[in-house]
């Protein structure tokens, strides 16, 4: 009796979980991915302190040198605070690999820095973006 109750519970739980998963998959794949989501790869933004760099170095040269690294999409240099913000493709390298490559390119110590969080950031985030992210990850249509 006890064993059959357990089996019944497992069966119901399995069916409910399966149905829930199926519903989420149908919802996520209801519409095909957008043109941009198909053709533009995911990327990550990271900041590195490069304060050891000589002050005479030109902003544009630093940006061009780092942008030329394979897998880097863009680089911007803040000459006042001596740090760079880099957007790179996560499918091509990790942040540690990027850090090593920048170090090799510039020949100075490169340290990853924390990005300050501000509440009134653009765009205002929240649950909506989390839901959109789940939908994006589970959408296999193209």
């Amino acid at each position, binding site marked *: 009796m006890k064993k059959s109750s357990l089996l019944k519970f497992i069966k119901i739980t399995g069916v409910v979980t399966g149905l829930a998963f199926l519903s989420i998959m149908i919802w996520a794949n209801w519409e095909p991915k957008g043109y941009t989501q198909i053709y533009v790869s995911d990327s990550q*933004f990271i900041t590195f302190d490069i304060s050891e760099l000589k002050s005479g170095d030109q902003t544009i040269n630093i940006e061009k040198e780092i942008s030329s690294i394979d897998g880097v999409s863009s680089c911007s240099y803040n000459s006042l605070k001596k740090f760079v913000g880099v957007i790179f493709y996560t499918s091509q390298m990790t942040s540690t690999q990027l850090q090593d490559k920048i170090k090799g390119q510039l020949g100075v110590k490169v340290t990853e820095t924390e990005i300050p*969080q501000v*509440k009134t950031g653009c*765009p205002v985030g929240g649950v909506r*973006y989390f839901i959109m992210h789940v939908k994006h990850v589970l959408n296999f249509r193209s």
Partner: protein
Amino acid sequence: MKKMNLILVASIATTLFVVSCKKEKETVTETVYVDNTPPPGPATLYTRLGGINAITAVVDKFISNCATNSFIGPRFSATAADNYRLQFFRYNLIDQVCAGSGGPCQYKGKTMLQAHTGMNITAPEFDTLVNQLVKAMNFYNVPAQEQGDLAAILLPMKTDIVGH
């Protein structure tokens, strides 16, 4: 026998007539088609900018410019630091530029007014943002004509972005 010959001649005549008519019709159809084809117009801004890859490069440069800028950086850093928020912010910007310039994308984000309400963005902040876009376009040598055309699409959004 005479009847058979008559039928044969009639068949050949009919075939020749049909073939000649078909040829004539094809020629006419072709001519009409050519006449109705509109002359090739100027390329869309999307094409002139270089398509999705060029737009992505400019948008990424614009985002990194904004996030590292001392004045407006704090507005962007939280988004840039969060991976999935960055993706959607980036996709929305690319979609907006791509769709606005006549590309195949569709902008699915909030309206500019909805997205910026509660942020109290000031006019100097907006101007700095525009400067970052210009810097990004200059970095990739976007010609002045295309920069102006893109600005004409984006600048009217100022009223929905500033002061809300």
